[in-house]
């Protein structure tokens, strides 16, 4: 906002990012600049490329074009500034491992090859688990967790990474109200500590309450900015209305989803 002059002050800077699955663009020429210390929601209809945006940023899927910078450095040199909370469904929750073990995995990059996590790592993990309110479950096998507890475990694992920029993929998906409030509190705490958090979000109703920045995405970036500036009726209509020109190949997918999301949009239309 005020620091826009100095480009190295962006916590995250994405330029001209394009990702294609089998020659069909999932993201088209996306730019995104996020200043330090904000909570940013990425919203958009199903198939808009929200998760793809995060995965391409973190080098988890190949990019057709585009550059990623974290605090002015290319992503490869800034990996340890970045924490990632994947979608809950991305792992096997029946795996024989404990909540504490999973949390400590966030530290494996720092421990180094061949070494074991020791007392210091256990203490760090325990304090992260306390922060997310499930320290009492530390020794429980992960198969015995509820959905909300699984999400908190993933969050604790990201917290121990002590990153500067966090990427979270649908952390609020199918969690109970108590967990949702707990996650929001953690997000706000992270912001107070100067961290930047980028969240794929699906609930338009809560964008205003939870976030201060928003990115409206539908294959192309429709609008980015403070919630006040960017989260407008007009931009929402552009994002969810299916009125996307210029990328014929992708418009089919968008048409299908736009009808499904129109109900959601209608509700928000009132809220806005």
């Amino acid at each position, binding site marked *: 906002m005020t620091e826009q002059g100095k480009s190295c002050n962006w916590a995250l800077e994405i330029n001209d990012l394009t990702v294609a699955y089998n020659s069909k663009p999932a993201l088209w020429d996306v730019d995104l600049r996020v200043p330090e210390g904000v909570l940013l929601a990425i919203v958009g209809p199903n198939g808009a490329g929200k998760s793809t945006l995060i995965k391409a940023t973190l080098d*988890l899927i190949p990019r057709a074009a585009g550059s990623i910078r974290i605090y002015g450095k290319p992503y490869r040199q800034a*990996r340890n500034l970045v924490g990632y909370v994947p979608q809950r469904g*991305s792992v096997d929750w029946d795996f024989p491992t404990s909540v504490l073990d999973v949390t400590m995995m966030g530290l494996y990059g720092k421990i180094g090859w061949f070494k074991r996590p020791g007392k210091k790592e256990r203490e760090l993990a325990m304090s992260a688990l306390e922060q997310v309110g499930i320290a009492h479950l530390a020794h429980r096998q992960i198969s015995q967790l509820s959905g909300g507890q699984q999400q908190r475990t993933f969050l604790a694992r990201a917290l121990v990474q002590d990153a500067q920029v966090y990427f979270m993929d649908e952390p609020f998906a199918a969690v109970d109200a108590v967990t949702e409030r707990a996650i929001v509190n953690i997000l706000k705490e992270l912001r107070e500590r100067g961290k930047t958090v980028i969240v794929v979000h699906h609930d338009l109703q809560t964008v205003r309450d939870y976030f201060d920045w928003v990115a409206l995405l539908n294959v192309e970036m429709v609008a980015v900015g403070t919630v006040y500036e960017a989260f407008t009726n007009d931009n929402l209509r552009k994002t969810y209305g299916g009125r996307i020109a210029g990328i014929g190949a992708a418009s089919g997918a968008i048409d299908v989803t736009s009808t499904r999301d129109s109900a959601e949009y209608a509700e928000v239309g009132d809220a806005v």
Partner: protein
Amino acid sequence: MQQLFLDPLRFEFMQRAMLAAMLVGIISGVMGTYVVTRGMAFFGDALAHSVLPGVAAVFITGNTAPGALLLGGLVAGVLSALGIGILSQGRRLGEDTAIGIVFAGMLALGIALISSTRSYAVDLAHILIGNIQAVQGEDIVLMLIAGGAVLLFVVALYKELLVISFDPTLAKNLHLPAEGLRLALLVALAVTVVIGVQVAGVALVSALLVTPAATARFFAKRLHVMMIVAAFLGALSGVGGMYLSWHLSIAPSAAIVLLATGLFILAFLFSPRGGFIPSLLGRNSDIV
């Protein structure tokens, strides 16, 4: 009673066989933990069949040097593991398709090689069901070296292998070479399978990987505990199976696998955590 235990041990070949069965049981138990938790049972079975051409090539050249069979199998197994790993990289081929292609091709090559010899049926039977009583001292030394290397690999890279098994995405985020580690794990599995083929044969070796580890899963909340339990169950099945085979005059590999299967059924029925009968009675303790 004492006689039951001491009787088979009068023979040196039985002592060697028991030692071999125990070693293979331990190593397969540990590696089987990855097979079960990563859902690679089909891979283990396929790998066992793909060592056939290597073993067969040694067989038909008449090379009787100790360890020659092991080495031949190892070459074929590692090549197959790497082949499957490379074919299934990216999204071009599903892993099960890659496995199916490599496995059937290698098996056919092995059969083709063996069928060119005169003692076709006998040789094939030995390779398929194992020939543990023919294990020599030198074979045991080789098993110790190869198995020791596999165990060292698992111990040294325990936490890295844990991450790539549980959450490969995090492994990439942590800057770990996830793809390289996966290939290394496949090679270690190939080594394990080749050691096991001598004991259990091509047809049954995957049971040594899958069954004890699957049983251990009923008793272990964490991966390393599961490894220890699986190794113990593998060794128990190996030694116990040799006794069964001696007293009942049945094929050793079959006896070992039947014992392992029996232990699995017991755990499946009665385990307090997730067992079938406790869950019928509504007494599963795993909710706590």
